[in-house]
Each structure stands twice: as C-alpha cells, then as structure tokens.
C-alpha cells in the first residue's frame, strides 16, 4: 500500500485507474466461462433422450387435450403413496412406477406372487396375490400352505392402448385351439369374466371378454388392470373398489392401521392413469442391417412367427392416434402351451397351468437401458438373455425352439440380433 500511495497520491484517481484494470481479468474469465458454457450448452443443461428410445413417450399425433391428459396420468402413474396418504394396509409397492422401471418391465425384486387352488382365487386366504408388505400396525401376508403359486415379473406398460385397440375378431381369427392346420401351434383366447364395476361401454367391459393383458391374458380391460393394481399392489382404494384389501389370515384386524378414509382416490385419478397407459407409445425398433434382415428371415423360417406375429392392426378408434394403424408387437395375444419347463401349474381364467400369452417382443432393444444393463425375461424373469429365454421354450414352441438351437452360431446370432432390435 505504501509504494502505491507514493505513486498515486490521489486516492480517487487510484481507485478509478485500478477499478478499470481490475475488470480485465475477471472479464476475460467470465467471457471464457460464457463461451465454454454456450459451446457445451446441450450437455451442460442436460439433453432429452429421443422419444424412440424411451418407454414413456406419448403416441405421435396426439391432440393438445390428449397430451394434457397424458401428462396428468403420467404424474399419477409416478406418484408414490405415503402411509399417511393411504398406502396399504397390505401392499406390494408404493406406486405404479415403482414396479415398472421407466415404464418397462420390472426387476426380480418386484416379482409378484399370485396364488390359487385349482383355479379358485381363494380371496378367503388372501388370494389371488400375495401382499408381502404392510404398514406399521398391519400384518403382511404369508403364503398359505397347499396353494399353487406363480411368480410374475411386472410387464412393460407401453403400447397397451394399441393392444386394446386391436379388434377382438382380429385376434380370435388367429386362434386354432384344435390345431386344425396341424402346425403344432394351437393358440386360444382367454375369455374372462368382468367385474360389475367395469362399465359395459369400457373396452373389454362386456363379458365374456377377450383377455389381452397380463401374463396369461387374464385381464380384458385397462381400467380393470389399473383398479386392481391400485387395490392389490399399492393398497389404494378407489371409487371402483372402495373396500380395503386386508390380510384375512392376520392374527388381528388390520384395517385400523390404515387411517385414511375410503375411497382413497377418486375415479378421476384412476381414469387419468388409464388414459396415460392408453396413450403410451412403444419404442421404435432399431434400424435395418443385412444381419438383422437375415435374422428376420430366420425368425420366420424357424417358426417363431407362428405365435410372435410381427404385426397386428388396430380398428376404428375415437383417438386418431390409435385408429387403423399397424401394431408391431410380435404377439398374437393368444394362449399357448409352453411346456413343462415354464408351466406354473396354476390356472388363471381359461388359461391352464401350462399356458401363457405370447409375450410381445417390442421394446427389447432398449430393455437393458432401464435395468442397469441386465435382462429379465419370461414371466418370472428367470432368463437373463433372449437366447436363454428361447431355449426355455417348450410345448407348442418346442419345434421352433429346436429349430433355433439347430442353427449355426452366426445364424443364431443374427436371429437374436433381430429380436433384440425390436
């Protein structure tokens, strides 16, 4: 300070001179920061994934009103319920999104256990689904003795509106329960009853209804699927099912533990989630390559397409985005005998213990992106790769499975590449 004062005895002048000079360095630093910032702006400010690479994008071509409904449903789908908001008294998880990772399939930790006795859903024993968690003050369910069980991995939820919009006749036309064409593949529908709380005008609301959803096509209606998921999976009562799901085998009444008045959410919230599910788009398949095209041809010649029908088509629909369009789901939505290896020996509606609905293959391309790079396939997630899943096929799929196993290594790789690009 001393020498400076001697050089610049006038303090005012010194301040003016130095205030100008002192701005140079910080100005350069700020300028550099701004330049770097603008250059890397996209990465710095995060980038949105391509809508084709996620499971939770809306269908293309939705109206603003539909998009608003989609967003409202998206929020409700992701909303976790606290105990103080009505979670439980017994439940499996706290929200819809807690079981469906990124709206895709779940992980083994989220596997649900369904149980019954000779087709009887045994509600007096807590059936048809085990709720293995409970809020404090309630008792979680324990699996009763001597019941048939089936472990079910939560399936992806995208594309359900498109599946719902496929005319029943289109699906039934592919059924061949007596295998009249002699190809070894039968395929039959699961015709299910519909609870009274589902309005008759609702898609899948008139009994007997064609089951389309669920591992055994045991659910005909998106509304029914949503109501039951709230009721059983989360323990949330609705206008449709206003009575709490309780543990009937508990040593003491468990209803009192849940202090939230029923119904815990109104019908409007349930319907917003249904709208969301209805408007979720499937991810786009990967691009075409010579290897994949070879795999596509093998997929057909081996016989996979007998059940994994590449494309179905929707009919007329009040929502233009769902009307009269191709649905590349790779499923016929029918039941098939999958052999002893995959049998759960538990019937569900018309489906017997060896039958499963053909699982859609769409979305396999990005499946691992939402499962930490892993794959969990088949109804219980036991297969950790597509190849392992194929090799576990049996029953009606035995011929196709053996055909796949008999391919040369490069042909198998091409077929798998094609399937994993869907």
């Amino acid at each position, binding site marked *: 300070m001393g020498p400076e004062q001697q050089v610049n005895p006038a303090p005012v002048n010194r301040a*003016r001179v130095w205030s100008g000079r002192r701005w140079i360095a910080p100005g350069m630093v700020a300028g550099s920061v701004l330049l770097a910032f603008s250059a890397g702006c996209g990465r710095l*400010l*995060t980038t949105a994934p391509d809508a084709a690479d996620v499971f939770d994008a809306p269908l293309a071509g939705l109206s603003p009103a539909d998009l608003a409904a989609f967003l409202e449903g998206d929020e409700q789908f992701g909303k*976790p319920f606290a105990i*103080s*908001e009505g979670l439980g008294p017994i439940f499996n998880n706290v929200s819809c999104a807690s079981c469906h990772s990124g709206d895709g399939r779940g992980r083994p930790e989220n596997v649900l256990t369904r149980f019954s006795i000779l087709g009887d859903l045994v509600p007096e024993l807590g059936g048809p689904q085990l709720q293995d*968690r*409970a809020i404090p003050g309630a008792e979680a369910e324990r699996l009763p003795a001597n019941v048939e069980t089936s472990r079910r991995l939560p399936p992806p939820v995208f594309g359900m509106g498109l599946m719902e919009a496929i005319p029943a006749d289109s699906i039934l036309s592919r059924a061949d329960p007596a295998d009249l064409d002699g190809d070894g593949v039968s395929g039959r529908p699961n015709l299910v009853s519909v609870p009274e709380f589902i309005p008759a005008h609702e898609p899948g609301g008139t009994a007997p209804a064609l089951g389309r959803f669920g591992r055994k096509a045991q659910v005909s209606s998106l509304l029914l699927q949503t109501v039951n998921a709230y009721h059983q999976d989360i323990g949330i009562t609705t206008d449709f099912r206003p009575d709490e799901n309780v543990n009937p085998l508990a040593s003491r009444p468990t209803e009192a533990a849940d202090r939230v008045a029923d119904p815990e959410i109104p019908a409007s919230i349930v319907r917003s989630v249904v709208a969301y599910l209805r408007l979720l788009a499937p991810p786009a398949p990967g691009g075409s390559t010579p290897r994949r095209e070879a795999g596509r041809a093998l997929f057909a010649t081996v016989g996979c397409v007998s059940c994994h029908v590449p494309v179905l088509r929707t009919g007329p629909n009040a929502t233009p985005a769902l009307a009269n369009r191709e649905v590349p789901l790779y499923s016929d939505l029918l039941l098939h005998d999958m052999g002893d290896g995959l049998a759960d020996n538990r019937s569900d509606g018309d489906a017997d213990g060896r039958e499963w609905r053909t699982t859609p293959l769409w979305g396999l391309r990005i499946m691992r992106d939402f499962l930490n790079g892993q794959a969990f396939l088949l109804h219980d997630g036991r297969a950790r790769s597509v190849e392992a899943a194929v090799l576990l096929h049996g029953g009606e799929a035995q011929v196709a499975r053996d055909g796949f196993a008999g391919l040369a290594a490069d042909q198998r790789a091409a077929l798998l590449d094609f399937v994993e690009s869907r």
Partner: protein
Amino acid sequence: MTTRPALGVTLRRTMAVLLLGLAALLTGPGAGRSLADDSLAAAPARPFVRGGYDDKPHVSGLFGRIAVGGYLEARAGWARQDGVTDELGIEVTRWNLLISTRLRDRVAIFSEIEFEDGGSEATVELAQVDIRFMPAFNTRAGILLLPLGRFNLAHDAPRNEMVTRPAEAEALLGVALAQPGLGVFGWIDRPGGARFSYEAYSVTGYHEGLIADSPEGTRLPAGRRNFEDRNASPAVVARIEWSPERRAGLGLSGYHGAYNIYRAGGLEVDERRDVSVAALDVEAPLGPTQWSGEVATVRVDLPPTLPGLFAGRQAGFYLMGAWRFGEDWIARMPGSSFTLAARVEAVDFDRDLAGDSMRALALGLNFRPLPETVVKFGFERGETRDRFNNLGAFARLRLGVASYF
C-alpha cells in the same frame, strides 16, 4: 437388528465421555470465570457459532432492549431434468423476522419467524431463552435449531454463498431443523484465540413422518416438524466444536432418539424404533479462500413389515470453497465485493441399495454490494439415481437475492 441397540449404547457412552470431558474442562485452567469478567456483560464480541443465532447484523448492532431484524430471500430459477425444462419461475423463498432481546445481560431471547412461499407457510424457526451463568455453562430452552451439523446452525440465505442449500443438509438432515428442547451450552476460550464449545439438548426429535409421510423412501425432513413430541419420547442431540481461530472450526454432532409411537396410555404398542445421526463439520480458511464442509451418516430402525422400501442407512456430504475478491472494485460502492464459490455434494439415501442417490457440482458467482446483501448467480449440474438405479441428469440456473435487514 442386533446392531441397532448397540449403536444407541455407543451413543450414550459417547455422551457420557463427552460430559466427563466437559467436566474436566470446566474444572481446568481457564474455566469458571466470574460473570463480571467475561463477554456476557455486553453483546458477545465473538458469536457462539459464526453466522449463527447471535451473529446477525441486527444483533451486533443492538441498541435499546429489543432488536428487530431479519432477512429476505428471493430467487428466479430455471431447472431442467433430462432435457425437459421443469421449472421456470420467480419466488420469494422466505422472509424471516428476527427479534432478539437481552434482560440485564443474564437472559437473552432470540426468535425467528419464517414466512415461506409468500406467507403460505409460517413457522417459528427459533424461540430460545438463554440463561447465562458463565461462559462454560449456560442453559437454553425453547424452539431450538438442533446442533446437528454446522449448516443447520448457520443457514441464513445471506450467509450461504450458493443459491441453494447443500442436499446433505436440506434433503438428508432436514435443514432448517428446529424443535422444542432444553439443555446446556457453553464455551471455553483458550490462549491464542482458540475456543472449545459444546451444546447438548433434549429435543422432541424426528417423528414417524420420516417413514409414514415419505413415500419415496426414508426421508428425515418428512419427520422434522415435531412441535408436540408425538411419541412423548425425547431425543438427545449434541455438538462439540474445536475452533483454533475465528474462521476455523471442527465440529462433531450426534443425535439419537425414538421416532415412532411405541408407548401409549402406559402400554407398549409397538417396538421402539430409533434414528441415529452423526455429523462431522469443518470450516477453515485456506489462503484467500474459505472452505466449509459437512458429512453425515444416518441410521434408522425400520418396521419389519416394510422390507426393501425404506432405507436403514443413509449418508451424505458437501464441501464448499469460496473466494472473495474485488473488494471496493466498484468505486461508488465501498464495501462491495465479489465471491466465486464451488460446491461438490453427494447424498446416498439408501446405502443398502444401488440407486436412490444424487450427486452434484454447483458453481456460484456472487456480488455483495454490502456485506449483508448478496446477489447470487448459481449453476448446478448433477445426477440422480432412482430406486431402479436409472440415471437422471439435472441442471439448474438460479439467480438469487438475499439480504439481512
């Protein structure tokens, strides 16, 4: 389950050792000064916690019997999550009214009422009565800021060099964390400007909302507002600090208490479930920069019927450095200065799960026209992991203004 009681025992033993050490200090050299010869006769020359309840402009400028002051924080924000702008707006985050008084230098009362979000929420954040006996021993009762980490004790927006609070303090521990309580505090000055200080209180503690009101997993902030002691089972919280000089300190905090209602009407209605928290905080000057940081670890006893959904173990930390420069660069604003600040932080909300975590880097450039007033520009970039361990990215640009009055 067997380790949880052991933790409680460990904490109680630690408290016992601390109290024994305290007793030794109280009887050692430099302790037990008379009332007349210490700083109690006037406003303390050195605050108990730098930036804390007795280190506000309206207190240091105290005149008359009652001092009224406060601070205001407003900010504009732009936030983006995975490429989607999900927040763009302006808000007056909080307006806090501070009222303090002293009665014949033996009793001091500090209070703070916080109005958040335009007055939609009003909270008594501080209402404490200090009865001062001697520097090394004083009593305190009222609604207290829990000495659980240093940031909770000195979290005013005009002090914080970032627009946002550290996630470790806000999302993990629940700053601002104020609860009814009573206990003792004091300090012992050592030669060379060093000081040892302590606080130990019995408080209402976290309540069961940390599970029951928290659908996304264990979150202590959901159980922090406990002004009625829902379970009639007080918790204990304590902090000790060694401060070699005014701008430096090393603090160690601990908290332990039941959070659920396990006894009612004289009957055992549930198993007792505890929360235990340990925090280590530090602040120190390093060259022209000032550094502060905090690390905390949390253990929560969980109901046995909720496996896999709630966290039994959590942890988090932050480290922040700030460089003040450009003092008096603006000739017309003597006392003005600029600050460059950086903060790195991470919180693992469930240490037994891959996922349910966050980490972030924050950068700040602030201008202080006066030491009590700050205009902040902040940028944060971070990542979150959901309970599936799916990655999410966020970026936030914020402009904040905060000032004491």
